[in-house]
């Protein structure tokens, strides 16, 4: 299940990759479902990561502005 929460998504992704690594008999249908879920998780996580990166850049800019005005 895809959540907006990045860490939950990453955790779920880890579970899926672990599942693939540990599965002795791959259930094609289930494997396919996992692949689809993982693909969606990756897409959602990348989008969320982008948003986080942008927010972080904004915060960095505001902190840099504060520092500059302090130095003046």
């Amino acid at each position, binding site marked *: 299940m895809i959540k907006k929460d990045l860490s939950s998504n990453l955790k779920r992704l880890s579970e899926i990759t672990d599942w693939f690594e540990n599965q002795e008999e791959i259930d094609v249908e289930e494997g396919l479902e996992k*692949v689809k879920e993982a693909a969606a998780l*990756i897409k959602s996580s990348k989008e969320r990561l982008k948003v986080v990166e942008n927010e972080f850049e904004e915060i960095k800019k505001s902190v840099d502005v504060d520092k500059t005005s302090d130095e003046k």
Partner: protein
Amino acid sequence: METPNEVIFSISEFIELLNIGLKRSKAKIIGEVSEVSFGPTGHVYFSLKDENPSTSSGQGGAMIKCICWKSKYFLFGIKLEEGLKIIASGYPEIYSMSGRLSFIAETIEYAGEGTLQKEYEKLKKKLADEGLFAKERKREIPEYVRKVGIITSKQGAVLADFLTNLGKYGFKIKLIDSRVEGQGAVEDLISAVKTFKNQDIEVLVIMRGGGSLESMMAFNNELLVREIVNFPVPVIAAIGHDKDEPLITLAADLAVSTPSIAATTLTEPWRRVDLLVETALKVSFQKLDNIIQSGKISLGNSWKDLVLGFNSLLSKINLKLENSGKMIYSNNPERQLKLGYSIARCGGKIVKKISDIKIGDNIDLKVSDGTIIAETINLKP
């Protein structure tokens, strides 16, 4: 209407009337003491006569009867004796019981610089021999004094000089105005010291400007010196003088030459405290500034670490997503089937070894676009 001349007085009324007028005739008279006698009540009776028998009026040997009340006599520390030359201040009065005129001496003092000097030296020695001027007797002027008693004349620059130099340290000043000149000052000074004995003060300051030995005689009074020595709190004497130190200066716990030095003595500890506080404030501000600057540097470093850490975290997440993507891609069953691999199942179970099936079993072969159903014809190891 009755005119004054028509009023008839009794003797006592008339003498009383005369005495009212005579009391206005205050004067200072100089003469030699004679016929000294002490009454049973302690009052002193004596005569004063001209030293030189010939007077301006041509009548030689002029003399006047004098009385000095006991309460006054003991103030001045002068022992009246035959031949002593003195100055008496007072007024004439007629004793109603005898009709005799006497001079009521309110103050008496030695006449002539030589006598004054001699008596000053004599008293100085006597009091010094008693140890009243000894350094060991002197008390420290307490630091951080707040309540100050002052005895001086409200007239003149002395008080203003003292108060100007006292600054704004919140002193609580109690002042007793006193005459400081001549023998008449003795009574004022002793009374002021006695009053201050019962007042809540931490130090007593007695002040006057400079003057001759004669004008300073009040400050050489034995009773006053003893009052100063026995005063309950330390005494500062700020009495200007040239050669002969007034005896209360010797008796005081601290003697200074001017009112401004007396004031500075009291303000100095407070000034030092002010300086300490000011310095402590400066140091505190500097320390606070250092802390703020150090905090800024620390914050800056923390921020840099935070940025680095977060960037590293983002990189890790990105890498994990990339790796997960690759892993999922490589494990995608559809991809395997499209590459030509198929999955064989027999009875729903995946066939991994030839022992999983036997000849004649049906096998479902899953391929990329469907399932092939095949029969096992042969098994080759």
